[in-house]
């Protein structure tokens, strides 16, 4: 990769490879494909909305990892009951 590419701010192939691997492995290790995560997200939204108002478009469901430990993380912003109903 040339210095010109670097000047243009392109990431090094090494960095791209590492980032891609990290994403691939999160899904491999947890056995959760990106598609399945979307399904899970939609179902969480459906269930929770029956009990509390949530901001559906801002819900994030991701898999994180620390060494070889995987964790499913759902970030669900609650809507304001008064302004939203």
């Amino acid at each position, binding site marked *: 990769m040339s210095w010109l590419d670097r000047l243009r*701010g392109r990431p*090094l192939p*090494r*960095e791209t490879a590492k980032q891609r691997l990290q994403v691939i492995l999160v899904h*491999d290790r947890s056995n959760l494909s990106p598609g399945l995560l979307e399904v899970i997200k939609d179902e969480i939204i459906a269930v929770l909305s029956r009990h509390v108002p949530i901001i559906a478009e801002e819900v994030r469901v991701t898999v994180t990892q620390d060494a070889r430990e995987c964790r499913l993380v759902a970030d669900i912003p609650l809507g304001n009951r008064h302004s939203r109903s």
Partner: protein
Amino acid sequence: MSAQVITVTSGKGGVGKTTVTANVGMALALAGRKVVCVDADIGLRNLDVVLGLENRIVYDIVHVVEGRCRTRQALIRDKRVPTLHLMPAAQSRDKSAVKPEDMVRICEELRPEFDYILIDSAAGIEEGFRTALAPADLILLVTNPEVSAVRDADRVIGLVEAMGKPVPKLIVNRLKLDMVRRGDMLDTSDVLEILAIELLGVIPEDEQVIVATNRGMPVVLEERSPAGQAFRAIARRLMGEPVPMFPSEDGQGILGWLRRLVRSGGGR
């Protein structure tokens, strides 16, 4: 004497298992240890050719399993390094001809007579994988610093864990220093960070490996070859000596410092 059984495995094929088995086996033998290399790649035998012993095969591991010869009779002794032995694979059979329990039994029989038993696995994670791993005390996981090879290595770590076997130690093979230097290839530190297992050694890309394989003279026999030196270092680590790792280009001297400076400054 009771041998340590070391299985050399990988996820992706063609990453260098046979090369590692032959060279580490020969390096251990050169250091005076009694070594037997077992070719568990049934149907696609290669270890005999890499070691240059292909003309001396009479019996193979399938003959042993089927009781057509004694375990000892299938062993070929290397004339160059007399403490090195090979148990060849069968060429005209399939993987199912040797079962995990057969491999365990053969290793039990060989253990009292050797210091190290090195098993070269077949590519893939099917039957042959379990057979090669069954008797292992130590597992060496070979990978190349490439996305697909590292991904498959990760899968093997998971499978090994599920089998209740010890966590493998990592060998990064075919590292191209000039590419790492340019930022065009994953460095050992990246692979280690991602796989999070212990590193046993790093082997550089080295044309002499191919020359050596063509001649049937493993590259460890070449005093000056960089790969040969890396293989000798791995053998010494296996024997318990602390040997510094192959230097990572990233960390070295003023150039490495400058490189890190430039990298942290630009591009993000």
